[in-house]
Structures are given as structure tokens and as C-alpha cells.
């Protein structure tokens, strides 16, 4: 929009003199930001550098020697963290602004090289022995600590995925996997526990107001993991008499998340639980109709899939309006 328009608004008295002069000033020395480009360069640079180094190490493992490589990785880690600690702002329970754009990326580089360091130690020297739980537990602790201390959301997400790996490793012993007889319900229960734990952590984050902007990550992973494992449990135990309990779980959990999402006015979570519940409801319908054969059932399927999207669309539009008004 041209400046004439704001001039008019100013003349009408909608915009104060102070704001108008700010707008004029902004227009006069309109800046072009290369923020996005610089960030992309940093991200790509780190990705390329770490991958390239990884390949070099992999190819020359015989000649370089493990100690030299470990020392080099440790050097990267230490120098990154040295920089980050020097420029770090003090811990706060709220969101902390990062000192500069390079900070986040150096922190990420340091964290990743630390993880590689630990992994390398375990792979080459089996520092943790066959105690794989511990081998993943320590990086996880480090990740969560870094995420909270430096206020880095990306590292928090890495920590959350690592938490899942740790829980998976602890629950399914190596022997079970090697002998190929591992029980699927164990995995499903683990994931359900993992998802519920994340949802609980998200709830706790909001309740205690410690880094409230982290709540989204916990809820995002928690919601998908727990609802997917509930649905998986239902389909895995389809013929058991308790199968319907899993579906009931989907509806109850969806309802709880839905209520919280309405409060938070987060449409992303609302739409997610609605779509999961829709899958659950549809599978319930299929279950009911499997005994009916012939054209009757087919027509019902079709009518259901024509009518249900329309109902859902109307529901979404209604909820969207409700959220915007609230």
C-alpha cells in the first residue's frame, strides 16, 4: 500500500503524529533483511560440515586413529559450548531472547558433536558396556539440560525423541529383539506410556509456568504418539473383547486434549484430535458393518463417507469461529 493512504489516515486523525512519523521514517529508509539467507547459510553450513566430516572419519578410520578423532570432536564441542556459555543470558523461567542469530546454531553444532562423541565412545570402546539404557539416558539428560538452560526448542525436540529411544531400549531387551520374538503389545504399551508422559509434562509445563513456550513441543509429540499407539493397540488386539477399550481411550484422551486446546485457543490440536477421533469413529462403523454383506453395506459406507466430511467441515468452521471470538 502506498504512503498516500497513511497520509490520508493521518489527516483524518486515525494515526497520531508520532506513529505517522515512524511510518514515514520506515518508508524512507526501508531496509532489506537478509536474515533468512544468513540463517539458511548457517544451517546448511553446519549440516554439510558435520556430514562431510562424518564421511571422512568413516573412510579413514584406520589411519587417523580413534583418539585423534575423538579429540577433534571434543574440541568442536568444547569450543561451541565455550562460546555459548560466554554469550549466554542468565536462566529465566520465561522465554529468553537469544543473543544473536549464530548462537542457536553454534549451540546446535556443539550439542550434535557432543552426541556423536558419546556415541563414538560407546561404539568403539563400549564405555557403557551392554547397558544401552545408560548409553541413551546420559545424552538425554544432557539434551534436556541444554534445552532448558539455553532455551533452545530444537534441542528440546531432540531430547524428547531421545527420551522415546531410551524408554524403548529399556523396555525391549536386546535378547527379545535378536531372537525376533518380541511382543508387540509391549511396544504399544511403552509408546502409550511415553505419549502420556509427554502430555503430562506438557500439562506440568503450563501449570508450573517453567518455560511455557515449551508446552507446544511436549503436547505435539505426546498427542500424536499416544493417539497413534491407542489406535495401533485397537487394531493389534482387534479380536480381543477389550479392543473397544482402546477406542474409548482415544475418545477420552481426545476430549481432554480438546478441552485444553479450546482454553489455549490452539486450532492445531483441535483439528488433530478431531481427525484422530474421526478415524476411530470410522473404524467403529466398519466393525459394526462387517457382518452385513451386499449392496446395503456398500451404500452405507458411501453415504457415510459423503455425509461425514460435510458434518466435519461444518464442525470445523463452527469451532474456528468460536475460537476467533473467544
Amino acid at each position, binding site marked *: *500500500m502506498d504512503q498516500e493512504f497513511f497520509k490520508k489516515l493521518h489527516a483524518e486523525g*486515525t*494515526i497520531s503524529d508520532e*506513529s505517522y512519523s515512524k511510518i514515514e521514517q*520506515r518508508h524512507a529508509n526501508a531496509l*532489506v*533483511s*537478509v*536474515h533468512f*539467507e*544468513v540463517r539458511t547459510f*548457517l544451517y546448511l*553450513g*553446519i*549440516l*554439510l*560440515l*558435520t*556430514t*562431510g*566430516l562424518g564421511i*571422512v572419519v568413516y573412510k579413514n578410520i584406520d589411519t587417523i586413529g580413534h583418539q585423534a578423532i575423538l579429540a577433534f570432536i571434543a574440541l568442536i564441542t568444547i569450543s561451541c559450548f565455550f562460546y555459548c556459555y560466554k554469550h549466554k543470558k542468565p536462566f529465566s523461567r520465561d522465554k529468553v531472547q537469544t543473543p544473536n542469530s549464530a548462537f542457536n546454531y553454534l549451540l*546446535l553444532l556443539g550439542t*550434535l558433536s557432543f*552426541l*556423536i562423541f558419546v*556415541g563414538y565412545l*560407546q561404539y568403539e570402546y563400549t564405555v557403557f558396556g551392554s547397558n*544401552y539404557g545408560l*548409553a541413551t539416558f546420559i545424552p538425554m539428560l544432557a539434551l534436556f539440560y541444554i534445552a532448558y538452560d539455553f532455551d533452545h*526448542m*530444537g534441542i528440546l*525436540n*531432540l531430547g*524428547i*525423541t531421545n527420551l522415546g*529411544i531410551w524408554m*524403548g*531400549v529399556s523396555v525391549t531387551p536386546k535378547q527379545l*529383539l535378536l531372537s525376533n520374538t518380541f511382543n508387540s503389545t509391549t511396544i504399544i504399551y511403552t*509408546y502409550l506410556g511415553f505419549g502420556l508422559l509427554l502430555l503430562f509434562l506438557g500439562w506440568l509445563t503450563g501449570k508450573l509456568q517453567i518455560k511455557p513456550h515449551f508446552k507446544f*513441543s511436549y503436547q*505435539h*509429540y505426546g498427542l*500424536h*504418539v499416544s493417539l*497413534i499407539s491407542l489406535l495401533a493397540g485397537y487394531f493389534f488386539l482387534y479380536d480381543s473383547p477389550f479392543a473397544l477399550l482402546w477406542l474409548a481411550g482415544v475418545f477420552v484422551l481426545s476430549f481432554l486434549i480438546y478441552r485444553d486446546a479450546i482454553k489455549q485457543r490452539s*486450532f*492445531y490440536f483441535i*483439528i*488433530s484430535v478431531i481427525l484422530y477421533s474421526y478415524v476411530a469413529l470410522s473404524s467403529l462403523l466398519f466393525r459394526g458393518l462387517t457382518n452385513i454383506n451386499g449392496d446395503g453395506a456398500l451404500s452405507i459406507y*458411501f*453415504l457415510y*463417507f*459423503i455425509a*461425514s*466430511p460435510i458434518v466435519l*467441515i461444518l464442525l*470445523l468452521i463452527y469451532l*474456528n469461529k468460536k475460537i476467533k471470538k473467544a
Partner: protein
Amino acid sequence: MIIYNKTWLNNLQIQQEAEQLHNAGCLTHDELKPIKEAYPVGFYMPGPFARTGLFLLTCVGTSFSFSFLSLMMSSSGIIDSFGWFLFLGLICTIALEVLVKSKHYYRAGINDALMWIAFGLLTVATGWMLGVDNYGTGHTHYLPTSMIILVISFYFTLRYANTIMSIISCLLLFAVVFFTWQQVGSFGNATMPFIIMIVAALLYFQATKLIKKAKQRYYEECLIMVQIVSLVILYLAGNYFVIGYLNNMLNNVVTDGPPTGIKLGPFFWAWTMLLPLLYIIRGVMKKNIMLIRIGLVLFAVAIFTFRTYYHVMSTELAMIIGGIALLVIAYTITRYLKTPKHRFTHIDIDNTAGSDNLKLEALFTAATLGHSKAAPTQTDRFGGGNFGGGGTGGGF
């Protein structure tokens, strides 16, 4: 021609502008409110998540409705011709028209889905109509098919000002030029890159001219897309790899090795390597961030092209050098622009990296880097390790 209420479109632009100024701290909250009230927008415009959800649901509903309709008609044999798809496509187009007019959907997911389904059905109908009778007679139906689809996509672009549709229109225009010039024969094949270059350059300048006119402001985003596509095509038309590939294809040569018989090789190499730099320089001079971005991406393409034919160093060495170079450049730019110079700054001025963008970036980090760090600690020990990533991918 545009279907949306023009006053509302104008008001929408005013509101967005005002909000941008508000975010930048130039307008107070009390000033923003009366502006929004004085220039109301009556569209139904849900957020990105609602839009995605509505899009998916509309696709499910429409496809089941159409399959049901087809199933009912299947015994009469009416669905065995392209006419049935044409019929369904027209129904979809009319439904879209009526819904947008009555419900004022604007980027609402529902209208997007209906538009794409209509376009898809009409494309299938066109391809079927012109393609079926031509089996064995060569590829003569390519030209009329792309012409008709171009007209369809151009109609949708003008009517709904959809950016992706404008990209498709643009690509189809190049397809039409390509197939037309191919009819000329061997002379046409030999001069193909130059014709495409000329058309791309003309298109770019035309779009640049139109974008400045106030009359075209509803199509501003579409015209930007046209600019981007024509700049990329202008580059690709002279890219050595593309030239070699097309050369082999047009002359029916099948080879895995480097292309043979390319005339003016040095010219195309210069084009491949220098044009991206030209874009960047021009972008820096004109303060045009779009040109700079395209130049940067195409520069990466140039490097890949070069590496396809000349293996000067190993991949990992190239990655390390490239990575260090990128970090150094980023560092230098940040240092150089500590205080804004030549109207460039490295600071995020519009504060666009709001909370949502940060969250997305965080998820992206976990998805791209999550595996590389997990691999050494838990290789082969836990089959379901990518579940967390799966959750991200399955996010709606």
C-alpha cells in the same frame, strides 16, 4: 474477472499492511483497531491448520460423492468416456463458483480443494479426449493437450488468483512454446534453448511491468510467481546439464555418459556458471531479495551441474569446504551488516520469525538431525526408532 469482492481484497491488504506496521512497532494497538474496523473484510479465512483440515475433508467428501455417482451410473456405460470426467469437472467448477460466491470462502481449504479437483478432472478429460485416438501416430497430441490445459489453468488463475495455479499456467505456456517450436523440425530442435530463453525473458519483463500497475494488484502474488518461474526457466534453458539431457532426448540418443555433439559448449557453460551470479548482483543492486534468493539456489544448481561432469574433488571434501565457506560467509555478512549498510540488514526486521515459525523450525531440526545423532548409540537395537519422526510426519 476475479471472483472475490474487490473492496474486501483491498481492505485485506490494508489490514495486513497495518498489522505489519503494528508488529514493527510503528502503530499502536489503539490505532490498529479503528483501521481494522473502518476497513472490514468479510471473507471466511481460517488459519493454516484449519485450511489443511478443510482441504483434506473436502477431498474425501468429493471423491466419495463422485465415486458413488460413478458407481450408480456404471451399468449404463456412460462413465467409459472422457465426457464423464468432463461432466464431473464442470460440476466441480460450478460448485466452486457457487460456494465461493455465497459463502465468501477465501483461501479456506474448501475452495482450494474444489479448484484442484476440478482442474484435475478437466485435465484428465482433455488428455483422454486427445490422447486416445493418437496411439501409434507419435506425440502429435502433446501440443493441443497442453494448449487446452493452459487455457483451463489460465482461467482458474484469473478467476481465483491462486499462486500455485499461476505457476502451472506458466509451465504450461513453456510447454506450448516447446511443442510448437518442435514442429519446425531439426532447426527447431537446434534453436530450442534460445527460443525458451527469449520467451522466459519476455515473460519476466512483462510480469515486472504488470506488477507495478495498481490495476493488477490482486494478482501481485501470482505475478511474483510468474517472475520466479520465468527466471528459473531462463536459467535452466541454458544450463549445460539440461541442454545435454534435452539434446539426447530430442535426437533420440540413449547414453549414460556426458552429452556429445553440443554446439556452443563454452557459451552454455558460461551461462550455467555466470547467470546465477548475475541474478545475485542484480538483486543486491536493486535491493530485490527475490532475485538474490533465486540466484543463490541456482548457484547451488550450477555447482551440482559442474560436479556432474568434472569430479575435481571427493564428495566429502567438497561438503567440508562448502560447509566452511557457508559458515564463513554467514559470519562475514553478520559482521559486515552489524549496522545496516546500503539498506541491507541481517536483523529480522518484520519480526516474521514469530512463535509459530520458531516451533516449525524446531520440529524440522528434530526431523532432519534426529536420526544422525541416534544412529551410533542404538544401531540395530531398536527397530521402531523412527517413531518420533513418524509422529512429526503424520502431523496434520
